[in-house]
């Protein structure tokens, strides 16, 4: 009994410390890593998603965090319409990925393609590009301010500031925002392998956690004891 009380106190203290460290001006409730590790991870990751303003292929203004990834399972990729080397291979590969996803988990996954050449890629150009490759619904192509897009790539870990040979990397960033589960894959990986790994984030397939959010007990957190 005495031991249980000690543990509870330690958890409260840890949460309070984290809250102070992250908060500053206003108090935001920090999820308890002991009881909901995924919510805690999602909370910690949120600051890395700049809520930049983007415009999609239909001219609609959207915020990156609020409108495109919050609460969603997403595949994020960078491209540009004049790209002749990588995109003509990557986009058809992702079309196959999307077909597999729509077959296995209809409506559950969104694809977000963001132009690294936003000054040139106006919504009309993106619309034409999407039409050309016959992309499905729930796949948005977006443009924005070049500096914003660069910041976004930096935060997602797909920008190498010293590298000038590659306009954008052969990588897709895949994640489920509410649970903080994120990873990336080579964009030219065989489409069934990409789709399989994306589907592990959905509720309908059995992933490492059987499709359920992982609980703290599975992670054997011992901090505070």
């Amino acid at each position, binding site marked *: 009994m005495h031991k249980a009380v000690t543990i509870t106190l330690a958890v409260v203290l840890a949460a309070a410390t984290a809250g102070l460290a992250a908060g500053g001006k206003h108090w935001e409730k920090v999820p308890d890593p002991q009881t909901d590790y995924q919510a805690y991870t999602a909370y910690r990751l949120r600051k890395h998603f700049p809520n930049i303003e983007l415009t999609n292929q239909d001219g609609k203004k959207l915020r990156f965090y609020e409108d495109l990834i919050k609460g969603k399972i997403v595949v994020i990729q960078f491209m540009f319409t004049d790209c002749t*080397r*990588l995109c003509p291979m*990557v986009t058809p590969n992702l079309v196959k990925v999307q077909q597999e996803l729509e077959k296995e988990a209809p409506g559950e996954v969104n694809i977000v393609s963001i132009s690294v050449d936003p000054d040139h890629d106006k919504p009309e150009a993106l619309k034409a590009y999407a039409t050309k490759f016959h992309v499905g619904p729930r796949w948005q192509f977006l443009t924005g301010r070049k500096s914003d897009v660069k910041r976004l790539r930096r935060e997602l*870990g797909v920008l*190498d500031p*010293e*590298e000038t*040979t*590659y306009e*954008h*990397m*052969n*990588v897709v960033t895949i994640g489920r925002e509410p649970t903080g589960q994120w*990873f*990336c*894959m*080579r*964009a*030219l*990986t*065989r489409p*069934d*392998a990409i*789709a*399989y790994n994306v589907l592990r984030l959905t509720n309908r397939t059995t992933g490492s956690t059987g499709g359920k959010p992982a609980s703290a007990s599975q992670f054997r957190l011992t901090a505070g004891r």
Partner: protein
Amino acid sequence: MIAPAERVEVIVDFSGLAIGTKVFLNNCMVQTDGRKPAGVVANCATVPQVPGSDGVGSLLSFNVAFSWPDASSFTPGQTLRTDFPVYNPAEALPPVPGSKPGATHDWRFERGRGGEWLVNCFNGAGAQAFDPGPKPPAPENPRVDAKCKVGTTEIWRLINGSGGWAHPVHIHRNQFQILDRVDSGSGRSLGLLPTQLGLKDVFRLEQNTTILLITKYTSGPTSDKQLGKYVMHCHNVEHEDMAMMIVWEVTP
């Protein structure tokens, strides 16, 4: 400096310290960016106890609580082992043609044409990335990049030919010993770092550096030959996700 997931064994001599002394293991490497560390703080003795956002601070503390009759198994300054290398280079299988210094397997840690991190992506057969094989429920069948016969001794060469990144390379199953560390351009020996002695499974493959490893594919303690497929990958998770990984197989 040691890499993520790299381990070293150290002996700490507390015998000269007064009872009540606190001893701290500190991280003095500044890191504020996911790409690489930004150097070491000037005075490692005055870092905060709770690491800040730059990661600098104490990781462990030891309390010198009581004394013990001196039964040292170790004299400071003494050489612990002299019987290295534990694997015999003379037993190693012949090197692959053209590899200098001789190695049975060559692994180049490099960027693919799309900027993604790969191993041996330009080997004449076009860009090759780690291939996980068919999706489940089909049996796992990744592409095997090297086959190694159980009981044999081989030399591997890990090559970093670029100047941008160091890769913490993790090889599963086997312990390796580093025979040499050379400049990838000139081939000049750079000597081993103190953290590179002994048997290891994670290697910090520095910029423009090649390391030469030796191992023997020993069997398990019983009849288990530990055959099967194992991976070697960069322990930088983003690089690993991009497919900086190979599969090697131990065969009968």
